[in-house]
């Protein structure tokens, strides 16, 4: 049953006065996630923006900042310890990490924790580069995007990895036969909250990949964050779907996709392609191919 705005918990689990940039999408997504999981939650935060801004007692739930590479290992230990003490019931274990900590550095640890069938929720905030350290490219950076390590100049024109080689984390995790995996977006909070609810109900590992446009790193006006997040979905850059026991289902159907230029024009990391029809067509081709390939996998 679809979640409604009136069903959303009024309880806040984050204190005011955090150090996140104005308009930070991670704060938005984390706030909504904790609203669903409630106060009986232990949060393990891999290094990243969120770990930094959560300092000074912002979360009202137990929150630990660990390394990039070991967050799923730490949650495994907590899971086992709670089980041994007979206190695992009614507790939610959550790992939050960025795309760098998930797709690049922490991938082996995540793979191991899923393989051991530990009971936890893994939430990845995908802002498509290492924003906390100055915006270096990561395994999920979009084709053509400017980052501090893929600059625009006479030789390089932003990220040059072909769009089809971008790491698809949900599919990588799905290959582990995980009970629940989903992609989400901060632009659709009710959809995100519903997925967190389903992930919490699963016994065993669950994975949610949350798309989060970064105002600072992508060069977006802070007020347009939610709009850009929605455009990523309506242009088909990302597909919102969930996978329950291997069956994939689209949760946000897009019947008529908008042209990719609509999405790119808000972001200064794509400033060099604005007006360049050829470059936009190249990005559009990648998006189309990915979208078609993704749709072919869907069961419903």
């Amino acid at each position, binding site marked *: 049953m679809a979640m409604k*705005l009136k069903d959303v918990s009024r309880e806040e689990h984050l204190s005011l006065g955090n150090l996140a940039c104005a308009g930070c999408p991670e704060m938005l997504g984390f706030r909504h996630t904790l609203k669903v999981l409630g106060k009986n939650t232990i949060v393990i935060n891999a290094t990243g923006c969120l770990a930094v801004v959560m300092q000074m007692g912002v979360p009202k739930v137990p929150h630990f900042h660990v390394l990039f590479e070991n967050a799923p290992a730490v949650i495994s230990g907590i899971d086992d310890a709670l089980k041994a003490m007979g206190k695992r019931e009614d507790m939610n274990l959550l790992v939050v990490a960025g795309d760098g900590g998930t797709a690049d550095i922490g991938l082996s640890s995540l793979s191991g924790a899923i393989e051991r069938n530990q009971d936890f929720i893994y939430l990845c905030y995908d802002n498509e580069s290492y924003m906390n350290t100055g915006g270096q490219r990561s395994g999920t950076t979009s084709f053509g995007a400017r980052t501090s390590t893929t600059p625009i100049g006479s030789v390089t024109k932003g990220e040059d990895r072909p769009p089809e080689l971008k790491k698809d984390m949900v599919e990588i995790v799905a290959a582990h036969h995980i009970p629940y995996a989903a992609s989400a977006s901060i632009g659709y909070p009710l959809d995100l909250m519903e997925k967190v609810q389903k992930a919490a109900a699963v016994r065993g590992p669950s994975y949610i990949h949350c798309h989060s446009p970064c105002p600072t790193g992508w060069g977006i006006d802070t*007020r347009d964050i939610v709009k850009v997040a929605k455009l990523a979905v309506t242009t088909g850059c990302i597909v919102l779907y969930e996978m329950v026991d291997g069956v994939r289902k689209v949760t946000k159907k897009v019947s008529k996709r908008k042209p990719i230029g609509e999405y790119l024009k808000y972001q200064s990391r794509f400033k060099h392609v604005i007006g360049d029809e050829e470059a936009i067509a190249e990005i559009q081709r990648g998006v189309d191919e990915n979208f078609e390939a993704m749709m072919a996998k869907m069961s419903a």
Partner: protein
Amino acid sequence: MGMEKYEKFVKDAKDVLTYPPGWSLDNKTGAWRATKPVLDHERCTECGLCWLYCPEACIDSESFDIDYDYCKGCGICAEECRPGAIEMQREETGEGA
């Protein structure tokens, strides 16, 4: 951040690096704001979208009053407000500080 409070905290916490919940409340982030959201209650339909989309959670879920002590002025509420009841005004006096 009050220096006295910090020193007391460090003394109490000894060498354990933990912060009690809500310790960040001293950090009044409203001082960061360049533009200020102003809600027109006449036009507000109380749909709750501004409350839902506020990354800081500084909009009240019942009255929709904005907490200017902590609002960073990102403007997402003004952008997402369907009836256009929230207007971003230039911050002149820096009263959030």
